[in-house]
C-alpha cells in the first residue's frame, strides 16, 4: 500500500538555487518591462521572472512544452501564480530576450505585471461543473482576446483583477474583484416527478436546501420548490439529479465591479452589481465582452493614477459611474437581502449625474 497523509512535495526541493540562498532576504524589485520582474537580494544576487499567460486548462503535452522551455532557459525552475500565470525563473538576464522570443513564437502572452489586467481567475463551467449557469473557459477566452493588450502592456491607472464564477456558489470566490463575471440561474430547479421517487432520498433532498425552499411531497414521493425562497445554488440538484436547475433560455451572466482584496490605500471591498443579466451567447459571448470592455475603457479614461476601479467609483460616486458607462440602473441594483438597508442613501448629499 502506498503511504497516505504525506502532504505535498516539499516546496524547498522546488526552489531555484538563487531563491534558496536568498530566501527571506530580498531587498527590492523592479518591473523591467511588462511581464519581466527583477528581484534583488541583500547579497546583490538577482532572480528574474518572466510571466506568461495561460488558458489554465492545460494538456499534458502543453505542460511538457512548458517544462522544455523551463529546462532550456531556467534550469528547470518555474512557478505558477495565484492567477494561473506561469512564471519562468532565471538568474541570467542575458537569456530573458531569447526566452521571451521563444514564448512569443509559441503564442504565450507575456505580461500581467503592474498596472495591467492579469489572467482571469475562473471556475469550470460547462467543461466540468454540474451546476453552471454559463461556461467559464469560453467567456474568459473571449474577454481576454479582446483585452489582450491590457495584459501585455501596463497602461491602466492601477491593477484590474477580473474573475469569473459560473454560478453563485463561487468556487472561484469572485466577490472581491475589480470586475466579476458571475453566471446566474433565474429559474428554480424543476423536479421530474417520474424520476425523483427512484433517484432521490426525499429527506436528504429537503435537508440539502440552505434556504428551506425544498419541501417534501410525501403523497407523490417527490419534492416541491418554493420559488420565493430559492436562490439557485443547485445544492438540491447535487444530491438529487432528477431536479435539474439549468435553464438555457434564462441562464446567463451578471457583471459586478469595484471589489478589491489588497489593503493598499483603501480597505478590501466587495464587488457590487452593475449589470444584472446578460444572455449566454456562445461561443464568444459578445454582450459580456462588450460590457467588460466598456467598463475597463471608461475606468481607464477617468480614474486617477493608482486608483483601483472601486476607489475611482467611491470618489466620483455611483451616480457618475452609471452616467459615464451608460449602464441602465434598475430595481435589481437595489439590495433586498439581509443587510440591504445599509446600502440605502441616508443623506441629502448626492450628485445629479
Amino acid at each position, binding site marked *: 500500500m502506498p503511504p497516505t497523509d504525506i502532504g505535498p512535495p516539499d516546496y524547498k526541493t522546488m526552489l531555484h538555487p538563487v531563491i534558496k540562498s536568498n530566501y527571506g532576504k530580498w531587498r527590492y524589485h523592479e518591473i523591467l518591462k511588462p511581464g519581466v520582474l527583477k528581484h534583488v537580494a541583500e547579497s546583490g544576487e538577482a532572480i528574474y521572472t518572466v510571466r506568461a499567460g495561460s488558458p489554465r486548462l492545460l494538456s499534458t503535452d502543453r505542460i511538457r512544452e512548458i517544462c522544455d522551455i523551463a529546462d532550456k532557459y531556467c534550469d528547470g525552475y518555474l512557478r505558477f501564480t495565484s492567477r494561473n500565470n506561469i512564471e519562468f525563473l532565471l538568474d541570467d538576464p542575458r537569456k530573458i530576450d531569447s526566452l521571451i522570443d521563444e514564448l512569443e513564437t509559441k503564442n504565450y502572452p507575456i505580461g500581467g505585471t503592474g498596472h495591467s489586467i492579469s489572467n482571469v481567475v475562473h471556475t469550470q463551467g460547462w467543461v466540468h461543473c454540474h451546476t453552471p449557469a454559463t461556461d467559464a473557459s469560453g467567456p474568459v477566452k473571449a474577454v481576454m482576446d479582446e483585452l489582450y493588450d491590457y495584459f501585455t502592456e501596463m497602461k491602466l491607472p492601477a491593477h484590474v483583477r477580473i474573475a469569473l464564477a459560473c454560478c453563485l456558489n463561487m468556487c472561484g470566490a469572485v466577490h472581491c474583484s475589480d470586475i466579476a463575471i458571475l453566471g446566474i440561474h433565474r429559474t428554480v430547479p424543476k423536479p421530474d416527478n417520474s424520476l425523483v421517487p427512484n433517484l432521490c432520498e426525499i429527506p436528504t433532498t429537503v435537508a*440539502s436546501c440552505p434556504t428551506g425552499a425544498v419541501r417534501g411531497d410525501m403523497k407523490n414521493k417527490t419534492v416541491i420548490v418554493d420559488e420565493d425562497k430559492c436562490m439557485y445554488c443547485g445544492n438540491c440538484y*447535487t444530491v438529487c439529479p432528477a431536479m435539474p436547475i439549468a435553464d438555457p433560455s434564462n441562464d446567463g451572466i451578471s457583471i459586478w465591479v469595484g471589489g478589491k482584496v489588497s489593503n493598499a490605500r483603501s480597505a478590501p471591498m466587495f464587488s457590487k452589481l452593475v449589470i444584472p443579466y446578460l444572455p449566454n451567447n456562445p461561443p464568444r459571448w459578445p454582450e459580456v465582452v462588450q460590457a467588460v470592455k466598456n467598463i475597463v475603457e471608461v475606468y481607464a479614461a477617468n480614474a486617477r493614477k493608482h486608483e483601483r476601479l472601486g476607489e475611482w467609483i467611491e470618489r466620483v460616486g455611483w451616480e457618475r459611474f452609471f452616467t459615464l458607462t451608460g449602464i441602465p440602473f434598475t430595481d435589481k441594483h437595489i439590495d433586498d437581502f439581509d443587510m440591504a438597508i445599509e446600502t440605502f442613501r441616508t443623506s441629502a448629499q448626492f450628485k445629479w449625474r
Partner: protein
Amino acid sequence: MKDDLKERIVELFRQKSKGEKHFFYIRDVVKWLPDEDRRMVQDAVKELLDEEILKYWSTGSTTYLVLAEHYPKE
C-alpha cells in the same frame, strides 16, 4: 470501550436508516450520542469508515455519512 461505541454508532445508523433517509452529517451522529465526547465519536466513525462499514458520500462541498449497504450504486 471504543468497540462498544462503534457498535452503538452502527446500531444507530441502522435505526435511523430504516426510513427513507440514509445520508447523515457527522453532526447528526454526534447529536445521537449526547453523552459521548465529540472527538471520541469522530474517531470511532473514522474507524468504521476505514473498515468500510460506513462510507463517505460528498457533494464536493458537503460530506455525508452512509451505511455501506445503503451507498448508492453508480
